[in-house]
C-alpha cells in the first residue's frame, strides 16, 4: 500500500503542477497583463508586490528593461512546452522506429542501429546543439529540429530491448508460423507492450529537452529576444543576484516547477508500468 500511495502521490502532484503550466501556456495570450516585450525604462527593477516598493501593477515585478515579469513567465511557458513536446514527438518517432526495426528484424539492421546509437551517444549534446544553432541560426523550428535529432537515443534503446524480448516469445513465433504478416504481429502484439516504457522515456526526454533549451538560451545561443524563454530570463538576471534576487529567482522557480512536474509524472508512470513497484 505504501508503494501505491507513493504512486498516486507523485502522479497527482505532478499532473496538477504540469496542468497548471499547460493552462498558463494556453491562456497566456488572454490573461497576461502586459506584452512581454514591452519595455518601460522608468519602471525598471520594480520588486514583486509583496516586498516593499512593489505594487500590484506588476505583480511579480519588472526586469532590467522594465518588462513585466509575470507576463514573461506566462509567455515563456509556451516556449518551454512547445519545445518540450515537439522535440519529444520528433525524437520519439525517430528513436522508436529505429529501435523497433532493430529489435524485430535483428541481424544487419540491428547492428547498424546499435552503431548509430553508439555514435549518437558519443556526441556531446550541448556542444552539438550549440554548434548547430550557431551555424544555422536560432529560429524556434531549427532548435526543435536540432534537439529532436539529438534526443532519440533512449527511445531507440528502450524500444529495441522491449521488442527483442517480445519477439522471441513463443506466441509471437507461433503467430508468424500461422501466417500472420510481420506488420500484423507488430501492431497487435508489440505496440501495446511498448506504450508504457516509451511513455516513461518520453517524460524523461521532455525534461531533458526543456533543460537543454533553457541551457542554450542561458548561454545566449538559444531563443532570442523578443521571444521569451525562462533560460534567457535567468541569463539576463544573472548579474542581479545580490541586489535584485527576484528577477533571477522567479524564472528559476518556474523552470524547476516544470521539470519537477514532468519528473514526478514520469516517475509515477514508471512505477505503474513496472510489475513490481521497485523504485
Amino acid at each position, binding site marked *: 500500500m*505504501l508503494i501505491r500511495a507513493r504512486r498516486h502521490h507523485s502522479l497527482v502532484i505532478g499532473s496538477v503542477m504540469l496542468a497548471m503550466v499547460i493552462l498558463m501556456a494556453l491562456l497566456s495570450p488572454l490573461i497576461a497583463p502586459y506584452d512581454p516585450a514591452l519595455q518601460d525604462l522608468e519602471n525598471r527593477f520594480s520588486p514583486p508586490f509583496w516586498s516593499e516598493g512593489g505594487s500590484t501593477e506588476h505583480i511579480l515585478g519588472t526586469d532590467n528593461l522594465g518588462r513585466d515579469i509575470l507576463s514573461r513567465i506566462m509567455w515563456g511557458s509556451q516556449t518551454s512546452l512547445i519545445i518540450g513536446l515537439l522535440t519529444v514527438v520528433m525524437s520519439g518517432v525517430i528513436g522508436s522506429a529505429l529501435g523497433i526495426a532493430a529489435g524485430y528484424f535483428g541481424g544487419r539492421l540491428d547492428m547498424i542501429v546499435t*552503431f548509430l546509437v*553508439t*555514435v549518437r*551517444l*558519443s*556526441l*556531446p*549534446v*550541448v*556542444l*552539438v546543439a*550549440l*554548434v*548547430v544553432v*550557431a*551555424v*544555422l541560426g536560432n529560429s524556434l523550428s531549427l532548435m526543435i529540429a536540432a534537439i529532436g535529432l539529438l534526443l532519440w537515443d533512449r527511445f531507440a534503446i528502450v524500444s529495441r530491448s522491449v521488442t527483442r524480448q517480445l519477439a522471441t516469445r513463443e506466441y509471437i513465433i507461433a503467430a508468424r508460423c500461422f501466417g500472420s504478416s510481420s506488420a500484423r504481429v507488430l501492431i497487435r502484439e508489440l505496440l501495446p507492450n511498448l506504450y508504457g516504457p516509451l511513455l516513461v522515456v518520453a517524460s524523461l526526454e521532455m*525534461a531533458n529537452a526543456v*533543460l537543454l533549451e*533553457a*541551457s542554450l538560451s*542561458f*548561454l*545566449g*545561443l538559444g531563443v532570442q529576444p523578443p521571444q521569451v524563454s525562462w*533560460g534567457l530570463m*535567468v541569463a539576463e538576471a*544573472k548579474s542581479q*543576484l*545580490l541586489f535584485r534576487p527576484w528577477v*533571477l529567482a522567479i524564472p*528559476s522557480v518556474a*523552470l*524547476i516547477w516544470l*521539470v*519537477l512536474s514532468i*519528473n*514526478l509524472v514520469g*516517475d509515477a508512470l514508471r512505477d505503474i508500468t513496472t510489475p513490481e513497484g*521497485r*523504485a
Partner: protein
Amino acid sequence: MLTYFLRRLLLTAAVLFATSIIAFLLVHLTADPASTMAGEGASASDLEVIRETYGFNRPLYVQYTAWLLDLLQGDFGRSYYLRRDVSEILAERIPVTVTLGVSALCFSIVVSLTLGVCAALRPNSIIDRFALWLAVAGQALPSFLVAIGLMYVFGVYMRLLPISGVSDWTGYILPVVALGYYSTPSLMRLTRAGMLEALQSDHVRTARAYGLSPWRVTIRHALRHAILPVVSVAAVELGFMLGGSIIVESVFSLKGLGYLAWESIQRADIQVIQSILLLVAASYAVLTLCADLLNAALDPRVRH
C-alpha cells in the same frame, strides 16, 4: 578476453571515424565558412585569402581527408581567431576540464554510493526517503541554476569559497559540486536498486548463513554485484560531464575546454570547434570502452 578487447577496440575506432565525419560536417554546414569566420565587415579579398589558407575552395571530401590525415599526425589546425595552433590551445585547456570532470565524477560516486547503500540497507526508513527525495529534487535542477546558486550562497553571501578562476584547489570545490550533482540521482537510484536486489540474492543469504560479518556481506558480496551497472553508467556520465562542462565553466570562468568551445562558437573559430567536438567524442568513446573492460574484469561471467 583478448578477442573481446580487440572487438571493442575495432568498434571504438569505427565510432570515432563516424563522429569525426559528423564533427566535420556540422561545422561546415554554413554556406560560406569564410564569411562566418571573418564576421561582418570583411572585404571580398580578405575572404578569398581565408579561403585559400583554409582550403575552403576544395570539395568537401578532400577537405575532410586532409583534416583527418593532419589529425592523425597530431596537427589540429590553426585557430583563426587566436592565431595559434589548436593543439597548443587545447593542451592548455584540457587539464582544467579533466580535473573538473574527474573530481565531479568522484564526488558524485561517493555521494551516490553512500546514499544508495544506506538507503538499501534500511528500505522505507528516513534515510531512504531522504535519498529518494534528494534524487527527485536533484534531477529537477538545471545545472546553471545550481552553479549560480552555489556561487551566490558560498561565494558571495558566505564568502567562503572563490567564485571564479582556479588559483588554488579551493576554486574547484563549487564547480565540482555544480557539475557532479546532476548524475548523483541516477547513480544513487541505480546503486540502491542493485543493492536491494543483491541483498535478496541467494549468495548473500549463504554469506549471512555462514556468519560472515555484516560489513563483509554488504560490501564484498552485495555491493560487488550492485556496482556493475553503476560502473558503466559512471563512465558514461564522465563523458557527459566532459561535454557538459561548458555551462559550469562559463559561470565560474574556468579556463577549460567547455569555456573555450563557447568562446569559439561565438567567434566562429571553426578549427577549434571541430577539434573540441572530436576530442570530447573520442574521450567518451574511450571511456565507454574502459567501462566495458572494467565490467568484464569485475564480472567473471562476462569473460567466459
